[in-house]
């Protein structure tokens, strides 16, 4: 039987990025995918006639421009359109609008607190300083601090140099920033509740922590360091839904001679004499290669898709301990028209961007309390967007698609409850009734809805426990500790078996950086040179 140069397990965005880089270097690459469709968590499915959803991930900012450029993804139809607007609809009938123009934003924030309106500039400058430090690390392999290899030493030196490029107060600030809670961080700048709630949301998204939990300030940064065309912190829609990112990658891969087999997942990664030799699919097919790359999360890869006897005990134990708790769900809704929000001024930009209904960090923390008790939040934090106001390709004329990210929702329900249809519907209802409080005509506009609980996210996107980042983005699981200490450079204990998913450095979000970094390491091992995954300056 034919032997491939490399086999990638899972056609998510990172798997495809790795595959594209390998194919670009002239390798014969196969990608195998469990579902009939590709995309993983960057997927657009038509579940209701005429509507395309961004079923899982829903906005784009983090995808590294270096990758789009290297792979010329524009040729394969990828276009990311930045959006403005957004804000918070408040319980008291007021709102906070996020406005792109600096002076307009200041005047809007000043309605809530004059001090905050000016502190926002100081806050933005500080966040940008943190971004400047971390951004160049994204497209680099994290150095192993225990290694004496010249390359690791060099990379550590690079880190050290960057650190020393900071002023003294900034060094202190950074150490605090990486460990503190998002609320503590925001308390240093802002006094108004709604302002803090507006920003704090990005500190908890996808994380099984509350806004007062240590470590969430970093999560905020993780969401902030994306860009659209050099505008740091800007977010955009992938035209046609998030699936157009993976579609572009798949087309690029085929163009470079790569192959994708969808419809049957890998049941077992084949290991012989301590090295990976191929994959056995659920349908009985077997494919062979000396290089197997898993885009799946580490738990699924090492605990479910291979025999652990091939792995060292301590590695298995650490993988078991890897934090990958599900904390969020998702609603995708087809709407017969644009919902009205009477408390917003006419022509308001709030609903053109990402909007929320949580107007205090207190409510956010209470929503987390529900998660800890093993149930979904009664008053959830919602991240709502209606992309069809900007993207004409996702719904019929005059109709709309709404994506609702819902936090919190646990993977395991308490009191013997399970995620059955009844509970799934009740979970959806808590979200729909919250939106209905602000939009009287919303409920009547619903034509179809897709509800994704953490369990559904695990089943449909393959993400263990439904954790959208393939593992939480807390400091203990970042850089050279991601996914587990000693294995942060995309290699596994099994020779020829690599990782390229978001479980690896620099982590989750539709960023593609893990995939590009993994490809670079694989090619290095193959001695194929360094013509890939450019090192950011």
């Amino acid at each position: 039987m034919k032997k491939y140069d490399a086999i990638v397990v899972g056609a998510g965005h990172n798997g495809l990025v790795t595959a594209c880089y390998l194919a670009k270097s002239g390798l014969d690459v196969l990608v195998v995918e469990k579902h009939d469709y590709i995309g993983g968590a960057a997927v657009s499915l038509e579940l209701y006639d005429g509507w395309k959803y961004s079923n899982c991930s829903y906005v784009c900012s983090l995808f590294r421009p270096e990758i789009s450029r290297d792979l010329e993804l524009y040729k394969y139809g990828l276009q990311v359109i930045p959006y403005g607007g957004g804000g918070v609809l408040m319980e008291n009938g007021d709102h906070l609008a996020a406005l792109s123009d600096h002076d307009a934003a200041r005047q809007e924030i000043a309605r809530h607190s004059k001090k905050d309106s000016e502190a926002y500039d100081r806050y933005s400058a500080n966040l940008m300083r943190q971004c400047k430090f971390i951004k160049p690390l994204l497209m680099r392999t994290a150095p192993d601090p225990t290694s004496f290899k010249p390359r690791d030493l060099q990379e550590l030196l690079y880190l050290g140099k960057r650190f020393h490029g900071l002023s003294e107060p900034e060094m202190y600030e950074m150490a605090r920033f990486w460990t503190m809670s998002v609320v503590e961080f925001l308390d240093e700048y802002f006094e108004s509740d709604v302002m803090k709630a507006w920003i704090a949301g990005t500190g908890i998204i996808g994380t099984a922590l509350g806004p007062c939990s240590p470590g969430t300030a970093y999560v905020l940064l993780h969401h902030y360091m994306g860009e659209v065309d050099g505008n740091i912190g800007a977010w955009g829609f992938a035209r046609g839904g998030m699936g157009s990112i993976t579609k572009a990658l798949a087309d690029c891969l085929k163009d470079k001679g790569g192959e994708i087999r969808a419809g049957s997942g890998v049941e077992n990664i084949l290991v012989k004499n301590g090295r990976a030799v191929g994959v056995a699919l659920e349908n009985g097919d077997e494919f062979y290669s000396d290089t197997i790359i898993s885009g799946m999360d580490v738990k699924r890869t090492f605990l479910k898709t291979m025999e652990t006897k091939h792995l060292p005990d301590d590695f298995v134990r650490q993988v078991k301990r890897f934090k990958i708790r599900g904390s969020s769900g998702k609603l995708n809704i087809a709407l017969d028209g644009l919902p009205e929000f009477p408390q917003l001024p006419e022509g308001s930009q709030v609903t053109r961007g990402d909007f929320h209904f949580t107007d205090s960090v207190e409510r956010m923390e209470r929503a987390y309390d529900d998660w800890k008790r093993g149930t979904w939040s009664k008053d959830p934090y919602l991240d709502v967007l209606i992309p069809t106001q900007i993207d004409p390709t996702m719904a019929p004329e005059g109709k709309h698609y709404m994506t609702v990210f819902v936090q919190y929702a646990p993977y395991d329900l308490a009191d013997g409850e399970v995620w059955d249809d009844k509970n799934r519907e009740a979970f959806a209802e808590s979200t729909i009734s919250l939106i209905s409080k602000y939009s009287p005509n919303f409920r009547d506009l619903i034509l179809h809805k897709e509800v994704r609980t953490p369990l559904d996210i695990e089943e449909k996107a393959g993400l263990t426990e439904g954790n959208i980042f393939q593992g939480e983005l807390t400091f203990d699981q970042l850089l050279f500790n991601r996914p587990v200490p000693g294995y942060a450079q995309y290699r596994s204990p099994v020779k020829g078996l690599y990782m390229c998913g978001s479980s690896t450095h620099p982590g989750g979000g539709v960023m593609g950086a893990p995939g590009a970094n993994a490809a670079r390491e694989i090619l290095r091992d193959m001695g194929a040179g360094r013509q890939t995954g450019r090192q950011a300056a």
Partner: protein
Amino acid sequence: MTAMQPKPFDSRKLGMRQTPFYPRQMDWTITNDWLLWAGYTSPGSLDVVEQEYFAIRNSATVFDITPMCKYRVSGPEAELFLNRLVTRDIRKMRDNRVSYVIWCDDEGHMLDDGTVFKYSNTEYRLCCQERQYDWLTDNAIGLNVEIQDVTDDIAALAFQGPTTCRILKNLGLAGVEEMKPFDIREFPFGKGTLSVSRTGFTGDLGYELWIDPEQALDLWDTLFEAGRHYDIRPIGSHALDLARMEAGLLQPNVDFQSAEFTLRHSRRRSPFEIGMEWQVDFTKGHFNGRRALLKEKQQGTSKYCLVGLDIEGNKPAHAALIYHRQKKEIGRITSAMWSPTLKTNIALAELKRPFGIDQKEDIWVEIYVDKEMKWERVMARARIVSTPFFAPARKNQTPPADY
């Protein structure tokens, strides 16, 4: 959920507010050249910039400075508060006087500059370009002082040029000619009061006029009537920028970066590095940045200096790099212009020490000139000169002449 409140405002229109003087400027403009200044619509020019510039040096000009940030600082510890904020000793100020001030962060880096208006020991106003409410209120913690943003409560005009005193006399402001530079006086005007300070940003004879926004248009109309025979005209910020360069006045975020918003700490500057050592008074007790500045002075660790340059040729050296012996890069131009009054090619420049301090010779500026779609590179010799480049006697003369 509580009852819906009335819709508060149209947020689409935020960020483009109009000052009380906007309608009159709209009547005047033939260039339709508008800029945003701190959220207000502000003219870049209303007519030909050269004509507006020469009006500053020849007759009388009106520039709407309503968007400037204005803070009322009042209370028993207002003086203490301000003296801790700024680097110079404001306790020496008399009532109804204005003082130019700068202030720093704790590391002794420049935040902003501005003017303090003293009405009494418990009543001050601080005017500046960047918003400072956040910084001021943070610094007021524990002090018996009240900070109020009065930016929107006061309409203001910069009234600058050789004939301005004459026009104010025509306006009926009795005794205005006795005002010395940095004096403040109040005059009855209509149903209220017109506050006049002998201050400005042009390095020329001039005043700043402060009034209740309700009376703003009345002030404009009577002022233009009083100046009818003296070519009084409104101007935009382009002409003003030329005048302030000739006067050697610094523009925040042009000639130095406000430390609070710099991403790279190496871009922050101390007062010693921008020619502001005369503003720093170590004898007055504690103020923000004192410890760091004292250390910098004692150890001589200042890295930069800001100097005036006289550059050969007539092509303004916008954003140009500066070289020693045409080889070693030693700094950059921060502001540059051809001075129509001096007939000289002048610039403000930041140099890496010791250049500009001990080494002042053999300095060259690399200027790129666009000659109809062809770039020409010129290495022009530059000479360090003292600033202000232009300081006419009428600026400080009291009483001023009529023209």
